[in-house]
């Protein structure tokens, strides 16, 4: 048995390979709309695939698509990360 602990991180803070659910997108309507068009919206499962050196873009997978998100933008996307913890005995 494992239990889930939901930790909220920004997309920028997540580790490569981590998966989670978008909880919230901070910042204005414009950003929300651009992300929404690409299928990134609260409730979506996303996986962080990689980050680029020197605070470059973060690449994530949503459905079958890879999307690159600028670093500043990645700090505005809050993700509830799936973490598996061994059950405390």
């Amino acid at each position, binding site marked *: 048995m494992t239990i889930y602990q939901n930790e909220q991180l920004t997309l920028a803070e997540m580790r490569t390979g981590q998966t989670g659910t978008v909880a919230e997108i901070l910042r204005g309507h414009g950003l929300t709309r651009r*992300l929404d*068009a*690409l299928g990134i919206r609260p409730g979506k499962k996303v996986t962080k*695939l*990689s980050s680029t*050196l020197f605070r*470059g873009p973060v690449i994530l997978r949503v459905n079958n698509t890879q*999307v*690159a998100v600028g670093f500043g933008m990645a700090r505005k996307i809050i993700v509830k990360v799936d973490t598996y913890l061994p059950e405390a005995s």
Partner: protein
Amino acid sequence: MRILLVGNPNVGKSALFSRLTGTHIIASNYPGTTVEFTKGYLKLGEERAEIIDVPGNYTLEPTSKAEEVAVEMLKEGNLAINVVDATNLERNLNLTLQLLERQIPVIVALNMWDDTRHRGIDINVAKLEELLGVPVVPTAGITGQGVSELVRRLPEAKVPKNVRTYSDSDERWTRVGDIVSQVQSLSHRHHHWYENLEDFSSHRVGGVIIALLVLSATFWFVRFVGEGIIGYVADPLFEGLWTPPLMRLSLALGPGSFWHDILIGRLIGGGIDYSQSFGLLSTGLYIPLAAVLPYIFSFYLVLGILEDVGYLPRLAVLMDTIMHRLGLHGYAIIPTILGFGCNVPGIMATRILESRKQRFIAATLISIGVPCAALQAMIIGLVGEQGVEYIAMVYGSLFISWVIIGLILNRIVKGFNPELLVEIPPYRFPPWRAIGEKLWLRVSGFIKEALPIVLGAVLMVNVLYTLGVFNAIADIAAPILTGLWGLPKETIAPLVIGFLRKDAAMGLLVPLALTAKQLVISSTVLAMFFPCVATFVVLARELGARDLLKAVGIMIAAALMMGGLQNLVL
């Protein structure tokens, strides 16, 4: 009848378009804008229908200027073929539902169908058709599978009965999720070798390695193919087929006569020297067709492949950090690369950038630091004779100017600096047919646009020389030319003609017998000093009069400084 091809970017729309239309493809600009689209024709029974490849967009609520145009175009179509990426149903259906709300008859092409199997995706087409209320046809643009079925069923396209309209995006996404869960089932998928390549090129170090490989291979290929065509095809053709009739004409006209000077130019050592004679029929034809066209061909061949394989967005990601320093973001690398072909489409493509600040910086930097393929062909040919290191000096100076001016503009231009947000499409095998058609469009476009201007420039050179105009301004410009840049005052002629065509202007440097250093300075200055007339016009249209003046002021100042610096340092 006008049929629109509508869909997300990167869904194989262009490949499908080329399957549908055959050969008569025309690239046009949307009226009143510089957003480019292609159109072609399809025989539908007795009728000839026009097909328009609408620029790809994710939503009908536009987020950039280019997307606004796509939405505008929708109002003028009689029927829409909605191209849907079958491997990415959810995001694509969001656009489909928006399209259905528009009361335009729709038929869905479920494209990339051949890709679904190895990705473990199974779609119930009949069920999807029922849920959407419009015909759905599986297609594969690259192989042409399903295309005839799509054409056969075009008349069935319709506005579905009781179209639902959605009050907001969430509601529409919910419906999309509902449809997807009913029609799609996923199973175990095999990992393909090119998916490993995708992972590697998204990796923080792997990406850099791949970029270096791709860029150096690109440069090598463009030069190898360009030089090869010049050496083995263009030069022999001119020497063997064109020189004899031209020499007969020369005899008939008599060297030194007015028409001889205009048509054939000066004879060098009793014969025609295509790079120096400067007549309409000698140098006027040789520069665009033999010196430049081979490079245009090889450049656009590589560019077309890079575009359609899906590499460019990866380069955008990699360049993002650097481009941010210049007030841009990574996506600005795409207009920049286009600018290496010709500045005009490069500057037009700055429309994909979101803010005015970005568009101004990107357009200015392209016209200063990015030499077009025609100019580069002449630089490689002319400066290269002195040694590769001199070519490197020209490119190095342009690159340094590009970086420094970008850094400065980022500080002083007011405005908003948005962030990169771009889909990274999977690597795809190049759709050769679509690439070939695009290459043909670009190469024939070059011949149509460049040839008359080069001829005009050569004519003007002869007229201005005869009238003694160059001599008059040469004395006025001498302090800058000779004093600052260390060039002979005769270089005024190429600088003036550079406003018409920079390749023709480079040709004018040949008879001046410049030293290697002077060649480096004059090529650099020619590249930076002032845009050619075509670039000037498109800059004016994209930036408006005020920003155009600013951009031109920056160019002149930068060229003055860089040329002076080179004169001191080299």
